[in-house]
């Protein structure tokens, strides 16, 4: 779709010719993930996580539809229906464990995908919209995962719902009404479980829709690559099929090995045992924690302990949402023209500090709200915001980037190889020859 040298779809049989002039679906697939989509030839394995995320989403949708056939969304029966799935439904245990762990694996894959984008500058022009759609997907995923975690109506489900919906009561004046509107009562109850079930079923399809928009937006400039320089000609790319379909299948196999290993041998390792206790509105578990993938944000929420103009509670809520909303502005916070951190000697260090910082936040989020965790969490929260709001703008101004290769082909094959066949296939259009064209 994106580059002029992309292989054109040519229907080979009578039937495909007939279809192509009526519903060009095979052409669409050809251009989206087939030979008609040229991809930078040097992308590494970190570029496989987008496809893995797509597979993880499909696993969640399929196992989720199956679970919904046996689940019962009612305060009196929800917890028991999970046990019914585990014990009575044929292979019910399999689908539940795949769905439970599938959520965790979806987040693992997506977090790696996000950090890959941060490292290789995938959020920079002309891919800001691709990045922002990704942030939308992250927010939708968090909402979906949260509501899904409430459905089994165990202790962690109930108290998770209580804590997260109470976030909204921090809003001045209307907060409490919003909270009651969200849960449909004074506290999470039957009305909560039924609406969460409805939305938990809906949102994955919304995510799928945004994924389609994101892939569409991605196909206009095409992928970034580890050098961060744009594609200049046919010598820089390879068709998606068969080169990257094969590579993606290989990484998918590795992924499925890990996914299966955890789902079959450690199915509860990523969950919390308290969720096997039925919800009790009168007793909070001694130590409430969200699912692991929300821990860094939970740590940010808890980092505010003193009032300053507005209440500490509202600060925490604002900071937690801001930590993600901030990512929407990343393309403009980082003004460096160099995309890849491989050529940004200072940014590279700060990238790794950010990774460490997020791990620290996650670890603090899992700890009780006591010293020294509170202090550590506050420092890590401050650093998180400083990274995006102070360090990144300054670094992108003062940094002297390293010399980048002239082209992807030169980076991959060496300058000699490129010079040896200069006229064989001239770059069409040169730099910026990637003529943006809307996908179908």
């Amino acid at each position, binding site marked *: 779709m994106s580059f002029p040298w992309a292989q054109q779809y040519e229907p080979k049989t009578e039937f495909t010719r007939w279809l192509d002039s009526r519903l060009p679906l095979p052409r669409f697939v050809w251009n989206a993930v087939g030979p008609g989509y040229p991809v930078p030839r040097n992308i590494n394995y970190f570029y496989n996580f987008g496809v893995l995320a797509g597979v993880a989403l499909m696993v969640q949708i399929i196992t989720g539809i199956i679970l919904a056939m046996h689940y019962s969304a009612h305060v009196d029966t929800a917890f028991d229906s999970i046990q019914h799935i585990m014990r009575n439904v044929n292979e019910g245990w399999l689908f539940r464990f795949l769905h439970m762990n599938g959520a965790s694996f979806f987040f693992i894959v997506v977090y790696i995908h996000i950090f890959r984008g941060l490292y290789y500058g995938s959020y920079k022009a002309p891919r800001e919209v691709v990045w922002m759609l990704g942030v939308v997907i992250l927010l939708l995923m968090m909402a979906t995962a949260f509501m899904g975690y409430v459905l089994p109506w165990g202790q962690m489900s109930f108290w998770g719902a209580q*804590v997260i919906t*109470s976030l909204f009561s921090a809003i001045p004046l209307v907060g409490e009404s919003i909270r009651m509107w969200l849960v449909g009562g*004074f506290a999470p*109850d039957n009305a909560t479980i039924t609406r969460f079930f409805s939305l938990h079923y809906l949102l994955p399809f919304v995510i799928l829709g945004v994924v389609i928009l994101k892939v569409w937006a991605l196909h206009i400039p095409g992928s970034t690559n580890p050098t961060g320089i744009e594609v200049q000609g046919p010598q820089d790319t390879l068709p998606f099929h068969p080169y990257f379909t094969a590579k993606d299948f290989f990484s998918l196999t590795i992924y499925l090995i890990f996914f299966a290993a955890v789902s079959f041998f450690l199915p509860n390792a990523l969950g919390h045992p308290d969720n096997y206790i039925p919800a009790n*509105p*009168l007793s909070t578990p001694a130590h409430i924690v969200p699912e692991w993938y929300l821990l860094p944000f939970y740590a940010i929420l*808890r980092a505010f*302990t003193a009032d300053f103009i507005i209440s500490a*509670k509202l600060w925490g809520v604002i900071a937690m949402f801001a930590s993600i909303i901030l990512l929407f502005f990343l393309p403009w916070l980082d003004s460096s023209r160099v995309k890849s951190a491989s050529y940004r000697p200072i940014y590279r260090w700060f990238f790794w500090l950010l990774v460490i910082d997020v791990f620290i936040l996650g670890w603090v989020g899992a700890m009780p*709200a006591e010293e020294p965790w509170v202090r550590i969490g506050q420092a890590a929260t401050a650093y998180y915001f400083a990274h995006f709001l102070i360090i990144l703008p300054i670094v992108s101004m003062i940094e002297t980037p390293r010399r980048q290769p002239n082209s992807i082909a030169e980076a991959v094959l060496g300058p000699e190889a490129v010079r040896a066949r200069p006229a064989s296939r001239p770059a069409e259009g040169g730099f910026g020859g990637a003529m943006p064209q809307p996908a179908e």
Partner: protein
Amino acid sequence: MASDAKIISAAGGSPEGADVRRRDFIYIATGAFGAVGAAAVVWPMIHQMNPSADVLALATTEVDISSIQPGQAIKTVWQSKPVFVRNLTQAEIDAAKAVDVSTLRDRETLEQRTQPGRLNWLITLGVCTHLGCVPLGAAEGENKGDFGGYFCPCHGSHYDTAGRIRRGPAPTNLVVPPVTFKSDTLVEIG
């Protein structure tokens, strides 16, 4: 056809461009009518998520407090929220009174939080004002926090013997619901 063309060119803008034309009016009227209609449809869609009539009907709860000894507390439920009913000991009352109210985050005295003449009956919601966990400290042997009242384990809010926030992220004191003493042993909440 010819008259159509004339209408279109007239709607397209006269050189003066200042006068309101019939078509502008139709656009605005259609848009406004559509907006009102959309609002009328959207409101029920939003409002259906608010608490339903049966949920709102849970009005009051009566509690028999005769068996609660000084130093003890019970949990009960009002509007599907937990409520702590606590019989304070003299020491706890003194501790609550000894605090300089001006140093508190949410400035209230024990007198303001209890019924006249019944300083020992501290009745509060068992809902942490931070994010809604049930604080510990009502049941025997639970952690009462650094100030001897309640302790919320979720994010570490400490409440004192008057249920006032003393340390941690919670913004306000534990909420005191409407309370009426029907007799010395019977309280109505709500």
